[in-house]
């Protein structure tokens, strides 16, 4: 069987400028011409479907997932058969030549593809990906580590590569959100997944159909203060970015039966009610398997992963595995997987 690959590849790049009084550092990457962004997205093979900015950052919904641009940080996440790693070279080039910003750290993460054989180079294997990044990055990002974090199931592993020029964590910059949570869900509840299909000939734009899905599914209740930029694809599928000050969240849904997938990601700190957020996410999708990867900035000792268990287990899910790893100056990653305690009996054949 083949189908759309829901699992995203995710790249986070941090830049710095030598002259902090330079206006470029204040606005930084947000000053990049749209041509530069478009050129980068062409290399990855996706396009912008909607976008919005506030005083902290710009958020783009892409034909395949999302892009976030902060003054010195870019997060780009793409699904399907996109070639995400091909964005590294153009981004480094544009940041350097247009803004005089240089790359200081890089983090690449992904789950396990449902259809690994459909992936083009360099995403053909984690080994190929790591080789590609290693040769693409400037040599001064010399503290590097690649790791495959396991779960009990060989079909769910977490792949992490980090590289940085710093020997220790640099907390001088705004670690306003010391942790990032990346959630991957497969085998979604069929009825709930069905809400991410459009009615044929609804006459709506992808934006207004997306807005309707945000309301009907409860996604809007994850953070009621957030401005949501959403989009519904034809005939099915959904993407959203949420923005609340400098906080972002993002959801992507591939609802087709047989390879249904949804992801949720957000940053967090003590002010973010991560328990509420996680419970809402579980309620919206009721997945057969959920993995939660929590990346925590090096300087903070975190027990976010304990909160994750406390949030998710009362929802009828059980923690089946928990792996932890440390990355040079980039902090720690905890990878947890959960499945339902009791899987609902198949109700096929019943009226």
């Amino acid at each position, binding site marked *: 069987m083949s189908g759309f690959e829901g699992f995203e590849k995710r790249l986070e790049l941090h830049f710095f400028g030598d002259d902090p009084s330079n206006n470029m550092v204040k606005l930084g990457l947000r000053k*990049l011409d*749209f041509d530069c962004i478009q050129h980068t997205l062409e290399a990855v093979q996706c396009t912008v479907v*909607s976008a919005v900015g506030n005083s902290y950052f*710009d958020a783009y919904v892409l034909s395949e997932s999302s892009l976030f641009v902060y003054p010195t940080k870019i997060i780009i996440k793409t699904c399907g058969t996109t070639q995400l790693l091909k964005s590294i070279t153009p981004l480094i080039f544009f940041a350097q030549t247009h803004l005089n910003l240089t790359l200081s750290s890089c983090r690449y993460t992904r789950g396990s593809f449902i259809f690994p054989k459909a992936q083009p180079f360099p995403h053909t294997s984690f080994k190929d990906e790591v080789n590609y990044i290693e040769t693409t990055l400037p040599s001064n990002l010399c503290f590097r580590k690649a790791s495959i974090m396991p779960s009990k199931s060989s079909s769910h592993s977490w792949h992490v590569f980090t590289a940085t020029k710093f020997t220790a964590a640099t907390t001088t910059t705004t670690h306003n959100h010391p942790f990032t949570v990346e959630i991957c869900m497969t085998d979604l509840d069929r009825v709930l997944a069905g809400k991410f299909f459009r009615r044929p000939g609804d006459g709506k*734009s992808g*934006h207004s159909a997306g807005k309707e899905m945000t309301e009907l599914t409860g996604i809007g209740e994850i953070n009621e203060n957030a401005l949501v*930029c959403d989009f519904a694809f034809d005939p099915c599928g959904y993407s959203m970015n949420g923005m609340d000050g400098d906080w972002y969240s993002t959801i992507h849904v591939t609802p087709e039966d047989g390879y249904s997938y949804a992801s949720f990601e957000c940053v967090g700190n003590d002010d973010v009610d991560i328990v509420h957020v996680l419970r809402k996410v579980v309620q919206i999708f009721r997945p057969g398997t959920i993995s939660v990867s929590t990346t925590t900035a090096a300087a903070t000792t975190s027990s976010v992963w304990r909160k994750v268990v406390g949030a998710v287990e009362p929802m009828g899910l059980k923690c089946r595995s928990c792996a932890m790893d440390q990355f040079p100056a980039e902090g720690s990653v905890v990878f947890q997987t959960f499945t339902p305690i009791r899987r609902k009996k198949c109700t096929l054949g019943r009226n």
Partner: protein
Amino acid sequence: MAGSSEEGQVIGCHTIEAWNDQLKKGNDNNKLIVVDFTASWCGPCRFIAPFLAELAKKFPNVTFIKVDVDELKTVAQDWAVEAMPTFMFVKEGKIVGKVVGAKKEELQQTIEKHVAAASA
């Protein structure tokens, strides 16, 4: 009606006076006004700008106004603009619609809806 030089263009308002003038002119002519609240530092605003210029050509009977939220801070505050770009649709002095974000399809559909309502 003779076409003015501003017809088919996105008109930048850099002062409060220019802004008030344009609003008044649009309201007096009973035209639909589309206000684009934009910022120089906002990437999505640069993404949508060429499309807005196309729409201005396509809908010569609609007035397109561009306001930089840093230049006309008080206007942006009065209109409660928090995210960029924000498009406000004004008819007879009233806000009749709003699109937050660079959403090409939504923007065009909203203009078409209000233009149709005006000619109905």
